[in-house]
């Protein structure tokens, strides 16, 4: 995931992510084909804020990098 803050795209693939996290993201409606937007990056290489279906949430960069996005 190499988006700049404010950029959005459709999720192409999510692979290699911690299964707990994967399930929680799915609960939040984050899955293939959904539009996702990068909102901001936290301090000290901390978590990044994402928006999906109007819901804001934050995950760590390492895990966010598992989300492949087709930039729209």
């Amino acid at each position, binding site marked *: 995931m190499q988006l700049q803050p404010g950029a959005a795209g459709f999720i192409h693939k999510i692979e290699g992510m*911690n299964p*707990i*996290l994967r*399930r*929680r*993201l*799915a*609960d*939040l*409606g984050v*899955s293939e084909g959904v539009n996702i937007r990068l*909102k*901001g*990056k*936290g*301090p*000290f*290489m*901390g*978590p990044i*804020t994402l928006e999906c*279906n*109007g*819901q*804001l*949430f*934050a*995950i*760590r960069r390492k*895990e966010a990098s598992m989300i492949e996005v087709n930039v729209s």
Partner: protein
Amino acid sequence: MSSIALVGNPNTGKTSLFNTLTTSYEYVGNWSGVTVEKKIGNLKNGAGKLIDLPGIYSLHPLSRDEGVAAQYLIEESPEALINIVDASQLERNLLLTLQLLEYGKPTLIGLNMIDVANARGIRINQTILQARLGVTVLPLIARTGKGSVQMLSVLEESSAIPAVKFKLNYGEVVERAISSIEKELRSIKDLPNHRWVALQLLEQNPVILQILKSRTDITGLLNICEACQSELQIKKLALTLPQWIRSNRMEYIRSICDDVLDTSTQKPHNLTERLDSVLTHRFLGLPLFIFFMYALFKTTFDWVGGPLSDIVDGLISGPISDGTNSLLQTIGASNFTHALIVDGIIGGVGGVLVFVPQIFILFLIISFLEDSGYMARVCLLMDSTMERMGLNGKAFIPFIIGFGCNVPAIMAARSIEQPKDRMLTTLLMPLMSCSARLPVYALFAVVFFPEQQAFAVLSMYVMGIVFALILCKVFSKYLFKNESSVFIIELPPYRMPQIKTLSRSTWEKGKGFLRKAGTIILAGSAIIWFMSYAGPGGFDVEMDHSYLAKFGGMIAPLLEPLGFGTWQAGSTLVPGFLAKEVVVSTMNIIYHAPDTAGLENQISQVFTPLSAISFMAFILLYIPCLATVGVIKKETASWKWTFFSIGYSLALAYIVSFVIFQGGRLLGWS
């Protein structure tokens, strides 16, 4: 009496609704998993009981909290369900709704936060939603109580709510598996809707699996699931069974949303966007947070709390103790009674009550941060620091609650998904300065650091945090190897907390302190006073010859290297284990102080600034209080870990105080 369960996603306003529908009040918070145990209240119209279950995204649990809901649904049989749905997040919320409808009990849907949804330009066609789901949908604004009257009148006759006839077709392969599981389940008694159980089993819900396992041999059932999954794989329909079930549900939800939702006029959440661009800014965010924490302490101690405490102190040492004095004289009370009431009770309890304003202000500000939505951002800001120490940012919320009281804080740690992170948070919680330790710091800060009170107290809190972080690193490295932590947090939109909710939650948190003042501290003060009044030589002895002095004298040599090897200091530590609030009231009695000024005066003679720091550090770190030990035992379900937390904190306290005092002396301070 009928029982009705309240189920819904986190942050959808379930607890607010619970409070408006029931006569009893429960605490409202704003992060996921705050409702740690199911709470039961009586419906206002007396029609039955309402059970508030923890917020969940689906019945398949990830954290310990979430397991409670699934377990409740399979083991108990509520007459009806109320499913709270956030109107501004309809699509996501409906996933749980479908699982609940499959449960087959009479269900009401409370469509909450329609005001928020409307403000954001989201319109929902309620009639169609109702028709597609086959259950009554009631619009609600739980925060203001709008719609709760209608909800109550429907609940008046819960038996009249029609049972749900919802059935989603999962395709030929899965439907076949469902019917063969249903057949197997027939022999087991006391199960809810068999189709629901079958689906939960196919989804591999661990709670359901566990419960079935305890009642029957489940090999046959598992074989059906296995066969079903491989058939799906062979037909290239899905990789796993849970995935297939989920995608079927999602498809259905999308088709509902297409019909029901009108998002053509949807606007982004402007306020939240603008606030977040500053408050969670990658460079500004952390300094701002530190500034807020500093302001919190300044307000609590210097700006508002201190002056208020002075007023309370004036009242207790002035009119109240004078009044009691003359009253006791008039009724001719014996010397013993007189001394017990004035020195023991008013001295002991009064010395602690002085800190009530500060504690309430601290709680008020913490409640404000919770309700406004800022707390979740703090987790986000802190995660990279916490991750380096082997924890996750979510643990930060329990730690902040720990500033109020360690007991609810340890319970709040249940919302952390991973067992390792939860255990670490629990073990380290006693290092957070709870409000009971605050009186000690406040007292010593006034005496020795009058110019920098807030700073002195803040540095104690910071010291606790620093040690928590260091030990976290150590523990996670040596005690819990090979387990990484995950972090995900939902960020709710910012909103202005309502005064009503704020005052309620502040009161809920603070009343525990008042209750303790009326019970433990009262009893403790009386006992300690009596121990100082009586001695081997009889009653009304010199304090230095009392039982208390003898007792404190035994511990004193141990404390000598720490800089406070007097029997007085020694004897405050033991009751401090029962409740840290008792430390100051013990001092009041021991130093025979008529009021706070008197105690301050005494302390300034007995302690030096250096030994004061050493003493404060010891109070901060040594042994969690009895209530905390109890809850650690309950949450870890292990004596080993409980004793471990007692042991490491005692050792840490001793070492740190030793280093402070001896190190300070070497540097020439005294």
